[in-house]
């Protein structure tokens, strides 16, 4: 609880109410109000663009938004129809990349939190995780191109693109899993050790089950990152167009190239001519909406699980 809220004995603006009986006190209360006002203004200034942008996007996208838009394939040189291949392509990329990244990330976090002593080697591992998180997306694209497309000979494919995204989402999964593991009280582990459980038995039986909520939240939040990145998939497996029959639920194979929502928005904006103005906005809204929906689910999950915590 913040100090602000804890200071319930103070007046509504935080300064002791009895101080407003003197001139000095009144000046302090004024300063208080000014401070609060300034910082509130700064916060609103930051949030206002978000609200304005999202509203503008939805307003401009409205004429094109419909369930049909999501389910139909692009028609008439991509000036009509829908975005289904791009949408399902993004789902492919996200699911496969997280399937690869989540186990590695969770196990790596288990290592860092449960097994690693504070040696220089482990400090370097920590540093590596932080740096991997900060690598620019175009450098990930370069790596994906060099390693997965060329060296590993996957060629331009869903496989190469998903692996590139997996490397990109790995460090944040590691970091959030570590937080979740660290939140499990030491007492739980000690109780297990006292009855003779080995380290892995403790982890599997007590630590992991109690941190599942945090781990899940961390993984789900990476969905938005994997779905939204364009550069890593543009160079490893995403294409401008691939003909897909309407209603195909699973149109891609691992060695195919695929369409992706992020790439689709990019090409609609820069390469496809005569697109009605609402269509790129609608694509942006679908991408943004899916991302925000998934993130909202993760946040909701986190809030709900926090109420169920037993310690």
């Amino acid at each position, binding site marked *: 609880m913040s100090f602000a809220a804890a200071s319930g004995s103070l007046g509504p603006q935080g300064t002791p109410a009895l101080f407003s009986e003197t001139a000095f006190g009144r000046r302090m209360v004024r300063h208080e109000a000014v401070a609060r006002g300034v910082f509130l203004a700064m916060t609103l200034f930051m949030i206002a663009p978000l609200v304005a942008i999202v509203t503008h996007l939805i307003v401009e996208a409205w004429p094109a938004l419909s369930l049909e838009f999501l389910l139909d394939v*692009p*028609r*008439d*040189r*991509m000036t009509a129809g829908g975005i289904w291949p791009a949408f399902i392509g993004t789902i*492919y990329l996200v*699911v*496969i990349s997280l*399937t690869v990244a989540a186990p590695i990330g969770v196990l790596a976090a288990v290592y860092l939190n449960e097994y690693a002593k504070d040696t220089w080697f482990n400090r370097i591992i920590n540093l590596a995780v932080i740096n991997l998180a900060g690598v620019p997306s175009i450098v990930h694209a370069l790596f994906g191109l060099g390693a997965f497309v060329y060296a590993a000979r996957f*060629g*331009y494919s869903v496989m190469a693109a998903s692996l590139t995204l997996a490397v990109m989402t790995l460090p944040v999964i590691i970091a959030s899993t570590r937080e979740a593991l660290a939140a499990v009280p030491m007492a739980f582990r000690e109780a297990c050790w006292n009855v003779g459980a080995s380290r892995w038995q403790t982890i599997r039986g007590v630590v992991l089950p109690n941190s599942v909520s945090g781990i899940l939240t961390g993984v789900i939040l990476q969905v938005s990152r994997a779905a939204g990145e364009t550069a890593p998939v543009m160079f490893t497996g*995403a*294409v*401008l*167009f*691939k*003909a*897909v*029959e309407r209603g195909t639920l*699973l149109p*891609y*194979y*691992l*060695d*195919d*190239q695929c369409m992706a929502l992020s790439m689709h928005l990019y*090409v609609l*904006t*820069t*390469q*496809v*001519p*005569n697109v009605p103005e609402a269509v790129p906005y609608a694509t942006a809204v679908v991408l943004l909406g899916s991302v925000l929906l998934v993130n909202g689910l993760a946040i909701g999950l986190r809030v709900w699980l926090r109420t169920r915590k037993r310690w």
Partner: protein
Amino acid sequence: MTTSARAVVHTGVWVCLSACLGAFAGCRPHAEGAAIQNKGSDTMVSVAQAWAEAYQKVVPGVAVEVSGGGSGTGIASLIRGTVHIANASRDIKPAEAAQVLHNTGKEPKDFKVGYDALAVFVHRLNPLEAITFEQLAGIYREDGAFTHWGQFGLSVPGCKRDEIVRVSRQSSSGTYEFFRERVLSNRDFKLGSLDLNGSKEVVELVANTPCAIGYSGMGYATSGVKMLKVAMRAGEPAYAPTVEATWQQTYPIARSLHMYTLGEPTGIVRDYLDWVLSNAGQRILEESGYVPLSRDAGAERR
């Protein structure tokens, strides 16, 4: 639930999840080699996509994967051997063809699929009507002296600082290379032009920017821009970019559109190219705003 029952349920769940993931990832019956990879020119990407879309109905089992990136990207992929058909809005250079042969052991085979006029666009309110190569070079070339519309004796309504905003393409673009070769005589562009990704982006930016001048395929014209008549030298007649002027090669910046394959194409790639060169394909080319190979091509159902 007893421990063994729980174990059975857990195993069952894992098996189901794995099966679903496997099906998702493609561990299911797969038609042999049913995709054609087609990469390259941004100028041609709109018609390449239209072809791919239409071909889906002609041969449903074969999917054409289309991406842009510029003629340079297509040819680079050809050199690497990672693409079936490379689109290019310029000719392949001898050095590039040699590299293709060296790396893949096959010579690139050229299929001319149409023509295009490289139009010079200005804002619709710009009073300029015609331009010569020399003036274009004066604007775009590295040592060019034209920086303000006033130097043309014009004033463009809406152009606040009278400066010429040069809109160009990225160096991967065949359009860029063709313009440089034909108009700038292979000298370099002046730095500081807005080098955009797509042909449509150029036209959109010019339509929104009164001060701008740009070049792109004539098929990308919109109502917000004007296409200039171009003359090679001052005093010579200036021609507008039209289909006729392109066939007769009177429009000075007309070019051919190519599709390159690795050696002689076979199988589904051969079928696709045959279809592209047929009347059906040429009609789609014409509808996309390009110039078909001849007057008769595509004329069947006019």
